């Protein structure tokens, strides 16, 4: 087994990043334009990185499969972004944000990375304000904060219920400025289908032009993937329809290790399912739990309307089980608690939903205040369900939302493949086994604005400015493999649709690799996934051609990767004989149902190396906790 080198700098945790910044090599300003960097994805991490690297003078090529950089799924983040500004004078600090994030991640994240994240969190807010991001403000004109799950301080900055949108538009405005200046070239409607590795280092990518079907080759000195997470493996998730794992998965198959694939987050506050035709699940921001109270009936199969259930018959189960955090208990814990009460038959009318009730907050603060805080979220709810949440409580249920796992990266955010960097949700780095609310935006922007601009220079300073040509045999070989895959998909002409097969995979994943997992179920799941995959390769139908816009073909290519990734998720969950964060193995729990970690045997990052069809080798990066001592993660 290879020992992974995480390249964590020496020294006290609060000095590591400062020292490292000084010790890293620099590329002199005149030489920067001689280096070309490919960036895939234009969400928070990708757009902020492209803009910042372009500003420094590098030659940046940015790719997105969308029709505009602004469409990336970061745009959907509602609630907010954390920063340890301590503007509220409530005891926040870099160390507290670091501490909360390590604890929130159930002691499965790398301390040094998390501390750096906390250190730069304040700079992110400064940067966004300078760009004109209209954060919420107090009457005195200063910035307002709200609370989020897993924290006892108010450190979340927000722009109504559209924080992700405003941060992304800010980052994209910086990107657009560089596009206008010519330092960033933006390639729209291009889907990355493979990475090209020459002499052991990432030197380019192969993309499909989604308008013409043409397979295009691009060469660079380094490749950065900022392509988001893989929750769509479940088919139904809060992710956008086109979010996919293809870029990171194809990179994995070329040698990049995939870390902690089983660490997936099921978000507690989503809208319940309406039926078979449902295409995605809608998230209601966790910020709603600031003022909403979560409850179910104390009775099983209680068919009464919520208004007819008296206080005495209601079980405010989060407040009861976790009195100090109450309705703001972290996501993994809240989701599991909801599943538990629904499994007992105490969900809304015996079904899979719990109430999120604003009645007390409305009578305490008045409807106007609630409208101001959550108006647009209440509107979204009413549009989708046809019910008015000011009058009757919302109904919510957990749904797959965020994936903490991703490609393995070292402290410099570089994968084990030299020159291949991974940012944002696509990497595994900062959230351990569970991400706290309002921390995804923080990480995406930290990686893009304040980490990669430094670590990229350090890498490029050791690389020659000569560019590998795209007619290099390795480019030709990989491009041919991509073309062959497309032809193979189109030639099957079977009897089942892509969505139909994806739904089947999604159900298997949700049942056994979702909120509760166990050995027997996981073993069965691996078999089931292989069967659907086989069925796909024999019986899928993809009308249309490869030389034209073909959305069915695009979806099919992504599903091919989900089958393989799904199998690895199950394998990783099976390997990890403990419960931690979003990974809950039913065999490993305390008597009261809380997750039972096994620090002695599993305090490591699982980094999987692809070794051929359905084969992987496991590498372990041991985790050491010097500053936050692992303890049972209690929110009671």
């Amino acid at each position, binding site marked *: 087994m290879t020992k992974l080198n995480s390249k964590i700098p020496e020294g006290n945790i609060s000095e590591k990043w400062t020292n490292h910044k000084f010790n890293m090599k620099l590329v002199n300003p005149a030489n920067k334009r001689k280096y070309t960097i490919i960036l895939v994805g234009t969400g928070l991490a990708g757009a902020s990185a492209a803009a910042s690297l372009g500003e420094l003078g590098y030659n940046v090529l940015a790719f997105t499969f969308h*029709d505009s950089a602004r469409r990336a799924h970061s745009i959907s983040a509602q609630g907010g972004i954390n920063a340890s500004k301590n503007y509220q004078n409530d005891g926040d600090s870099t160390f507290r944000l670091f501490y909360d994030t390590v604890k929130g991640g159930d002691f499965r994240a790398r301390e040094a990375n998390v501390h750096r994240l906390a250190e730069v969190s304040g700079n992110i807010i400064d940067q966004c304000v300078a760009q004109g991001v209209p954060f919420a403000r107090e009457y005195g004109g200063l910035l307002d904060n709200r609370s989020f799950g897993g924290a006892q301080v108010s450190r979340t900055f927000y722009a109504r219920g559209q924080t992700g949108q405003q941060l992304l538009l800010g980052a994209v405005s910086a990107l657009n400025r560089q596009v206008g200046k010519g330092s960033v070239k933006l390639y*729209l409607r291009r889907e990355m289908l493979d990475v090209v590795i020459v002499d052991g280092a990432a030197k380019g990518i192969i993309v499909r032009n989604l308008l013409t079907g043409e397979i295009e080759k691009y060469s660079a000195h380094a490749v950065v993937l900022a392509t988001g997470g893989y929750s769509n493996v479940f088919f139904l998730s809060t992710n956008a329809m086109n979010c996919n794992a293809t870029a990171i998965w194809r990179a994995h198959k070329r040698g990049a290790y995939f870390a902690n694939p089983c660490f997936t987050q099921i978000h507690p506050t989503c809208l319940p399912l309406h039926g078979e*035709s449902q295409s995605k699940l809608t998230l209601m921001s966790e910020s709603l739990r600031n003022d909403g109270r979560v409850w179910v009936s104390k009775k099983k199969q209680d068919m009464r309307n919520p208004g007819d259930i008296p206080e005495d018959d209601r079980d405010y189960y989060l407040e009861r089980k976790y009195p100090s955090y109450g309705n703001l208990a972290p996501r993994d814990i809240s989701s599991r608690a909801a599943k538990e009460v629904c499994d007992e038959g105490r969900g809304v009318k015996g079904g899979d939903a719990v109430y999120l009730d604003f009645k007390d907050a409305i009578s305490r603060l008045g409807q106007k205040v609630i409208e101001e805080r959550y108006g647009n979220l209440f509107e979204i709810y009413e549009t989708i369900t*046809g019910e008015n949440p000011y009058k009757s409580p919302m109904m919510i249920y957990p749904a797959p939302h965020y994936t903490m796992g991703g490609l393995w990266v070292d402290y410099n955010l570089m994968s084990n493949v030299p020159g291949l960097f991974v940012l944002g949700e696509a990497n595994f780095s900062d959230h351990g086994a569970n991400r706290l609310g309002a921390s995804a935006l923080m990480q995406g922007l930290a990686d893009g604005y304040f980490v990669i601009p430094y670590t990229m220079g350090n890498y490029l300073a050791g690389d020659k400015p000569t560019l590998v040509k795209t007619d290099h045999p390795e480019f030709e070989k990989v491009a041919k493999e991509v073309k062959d895959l497309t032809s193979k998909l189109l030639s099957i002409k079977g009897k089942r649709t892509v969505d139909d097969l994806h739904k089947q995979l999604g159900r298997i994943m949700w049942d056994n690799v979702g909120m509760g997992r166990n050995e027997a179920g996981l073993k069965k799941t691996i078999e089931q996934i292989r069967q659907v995959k086989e069925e796909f390769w024999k019986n899928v139908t993809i009308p249309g051609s490869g030389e034209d816009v073909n959305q069915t073909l695009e979806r099919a290519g992504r599903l091919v990767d989900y089958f393989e990734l799904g199998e690895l998720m199950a394998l990783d969950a099976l390997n990890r004989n403990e419960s931690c964060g979003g990974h809950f193995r039913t065999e490993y729990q305390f008597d009261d149902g809380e997750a039972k970690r096994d620090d002695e045997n599993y305090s490591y990052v699982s980094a999987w190396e692809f070794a051929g069809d359905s084969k992987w080798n496991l590498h372990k990066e041991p985790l050491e906790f010097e500053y936050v001592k692992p303890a049972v993660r209690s929110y009671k």
Partner: protein
Amino acid sequence: MESKKLNIKLKIWRQKNSKSAGSFIDYDVQVSPDASFLEMLDELNNTLELKGEEAVHFESDCREGICGTCGLVINGRPHGPLSKIATCQLHMRNFQDGETLWVEPFRAKAFSVIKDLMVDRSGFDKILQAGGYISVNTGGVPDANAIPIPKDISSLAMDAAACIGCGACVAACKNASAMLFVSAKVSQYSLLPQGQPERYQRVEKMVKVMDELGFGSCTNTYACEAECPKGISVTNIARMNRDFMMAKIKNIEVEV
């Protein structure tokens, strides 16, 4: 618990590519009233694919009304019959059993049809690339609380910044004008203290590119505001016009 299904007659615009002529094709579907409009199209596509026919191509992504990717003209109205929602938020319970629905792409001179219901809206980004930003590099900026901004000003800026860039304003306008889109971005920065240094150059640069791309002029019909899924106000257009006039008076030189 599924409700009784609705029978819907669809007349959908099908067009092979930007160069070919398109036409309306009829489809009959049965759909749950709880399904969204786009989920109905997903189901239709599933049945088409099973028959080996090409799916009706339309764009969507977040399906929460925030990414701005989706956009269909339904019975003559961008984003359909309801106000202040994007196409992806429209649910079938808003239609009657037996109803006929005409489904078309967003049409404008500056938005060419790519295929079926997909259009090219890249002009919007070209306008933003010309000046839709505040020129600050990463790092070296003042503390976030260094500039107090009155809550009402910040709130007005946020109203304008809520634009999702879907293009419904252009599709709704008889002149295919992009004034609502452009003015929303101009207003956001024009209202905030951070946007003042480049206030007048910005509006000139953006308007210049907007005109070059073939977007029409504003003749105050307010159709844009009526169809905007985010309710962006036409007062932003007035603000942009004031800034534009001011830029002319100040005779500010613009390099684009």
